[in-house]
């Protein structure tokens, strides 16, 4: 009996050992198997965590250490698709609004016609700076829009070789006209910033819609509320395109790929708003207002125009009387 009991114990122990042996070494084996990928970097995981995957490289070109940046596809969507719609919408929208204004309100005429007496509005330096900016801005706008819209509209017309030659010139034209543009705007700021500080008069000017609401034209200084708004928008726009443009002109000097993409998108967005603004400015200066063009063409405006649009300024300039005026030569009797 005791022997049997002992045997049973032995058998049970043997079975137990067998079970143990079959389980434990198996467990020991799995924990000892080296899974080289347990700790390995994983592409999809890295992409979920970061904007781009970068590591250590051995080349002098440090931006090559970024091996993957799928955000490029987002940039492609913004630059290749959205920007085309935004650009077309802004430009065509502004032109449509101006056409509407032209055919409904029509050009603003000089009340009571021309007096025949001239008054100096912009001196030679002011006009020179203005037209310097104009030339630079037109070059920048046309060459900039070429990058966005040229492939769709100009390339099919002139063919790939001619379009490529033109675009290469446009690229350098864009780079090099940026300097005179920024310089011109800086001088313009120095010349006109003081006269563009908003005052209480401008509030009335805006309330009366610059003369469109009510039958009396609101008084204004040398620059009215609308011009002041344009001036400061242009200043902000210039600062925006200049800073973002410097990033593009010196690629990767101060930033990485993400910074470059952001700089490019901001540059394009600010520029397109700027172009829309200036199209409206050109309309008012050239078409929308009788007598306005002369102010920048030869610097002299009709006295009645000045009294209508810039009453306070005209009074101050002309009220001193022709003899006492420091712009003596400018205020002169009609030639005929």
């Amino acid at each position, binding site marked *: 009996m005791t022997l049997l009991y002992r045997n049973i114990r032995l058998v049970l122990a043997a079975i137990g050992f067998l079970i143990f042996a079959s389980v434990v070494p198996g467990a020991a084996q799995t924990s000892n198997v080296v899974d080289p*990928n347990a700790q390995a970097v994983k592409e999809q995981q890295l992409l979920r965590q970061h904007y781009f995957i970068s590591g250590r490289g051995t080349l002098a*070109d440090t931006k090559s250490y970024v091996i*993957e940046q799928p955000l*490029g596809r987002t940039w492609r969507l913004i630059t*290749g698709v959205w920007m085309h719609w935004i650009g077309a919408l802004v430009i065509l929208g502004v032109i449509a609004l101006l056409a509407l204004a032209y055919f409904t309100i029509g050009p603003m005429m000089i009340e009571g016609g021309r007096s025949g007496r001239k008054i100096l509005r912009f001196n030679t330096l002011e006009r020179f700076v203005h037209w310097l900016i104009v030339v630079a801005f037109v070059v920048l706008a046309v060459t900039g829009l070429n*990058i966005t819209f040229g492939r769709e509209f100009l390339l099919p017309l002139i063919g790939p070789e001619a379009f490529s030659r033109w675009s*290469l010139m446009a690229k350098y034209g864009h780079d090099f006209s940026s300097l005179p543009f920024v310089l011109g705007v800086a001088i313009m700021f120095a010349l006109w910033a003081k006269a563009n500080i908003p005052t209480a008069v401008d509030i009335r000017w805006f309330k009366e819609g610059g003369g469109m609401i009510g039958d009396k034209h609101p008084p204004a200084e040398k620059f009215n509320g609308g011009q002041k708004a344009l001036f400061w928008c242009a200043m902000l726009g210039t600062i925006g395109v200049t800073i973002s443009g410097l990033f593009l002109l*010196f690629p990767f*000097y101060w930033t990485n*790929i993400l910074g470059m993409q952001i700089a490019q998108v901001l540059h394009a967005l600010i520029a397109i708003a700027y172009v829309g603004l200036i199209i409206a400015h050109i309309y008012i200066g050239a078409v929308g207002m009788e007598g306005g063009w002369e102010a920048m063409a030869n610097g002299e405006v009709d006295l009645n125009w000045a009294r209508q649009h810039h009453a306070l300024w005209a009074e101050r300039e002309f009220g001193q009387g022709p003899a006492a005026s420091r712009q003596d030569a400018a205020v002169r009797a009609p030639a005929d």
Partner: protein
Amino acid sequence: MARMKFLCDADRCIECNACVTACKNENEVPWGINRRRVVTLNDGEPGERSVSMACMHCTDAPCAAVCPVDCFYTTDDGVVLHNKDLCIGCGYCFYACPFGAPQYPRVGDFGSRGKMDKCTFCAGGPEPDNSPAEYEKYGANRLAQGKLPMCAEVCSTKALLAGDGDVVEGIYKNRVTTRGYGSGAWGWQTAYSEDVPG
């Protein structure tokens, strides 16, 4: 026609940079330009991996989509090439490329870029196959000679595979099954919108 693809097996790459050197030599790539480079991730830490990266010759290539002068084209083999005579060096392809493949020689002052240069899958350019003009601008056209890209040919561990996409995918899948692990085909999800499970 085969659809050519690169596949870098990061579990095999030993960061010897032979692919980088062979590419530069085979294609006479100018000074300062590297069509291919090896980047090490988690360097010096457990789980460190090196990946050899160049142009992946994407399906629906972003570079081609954003190029303002439309200088890119895709060959029948699925290789993305470009025309240097048309390129204006604007840099847009670099912003759009998920793999940082486009390279620019520096010309003139500041950050002026010259005409873009990138991996051609050793397939040259638009000029007649293996003409001196093609070689000067784009390097070797090994594909036209019935050979595969030099970088993959010299790879000592066969980490870098180049060729028919289905074939390299098959080789890689076989490896993963045999050894029991794989960190995946780097860049395939981004370039071809398909993943090779590791």
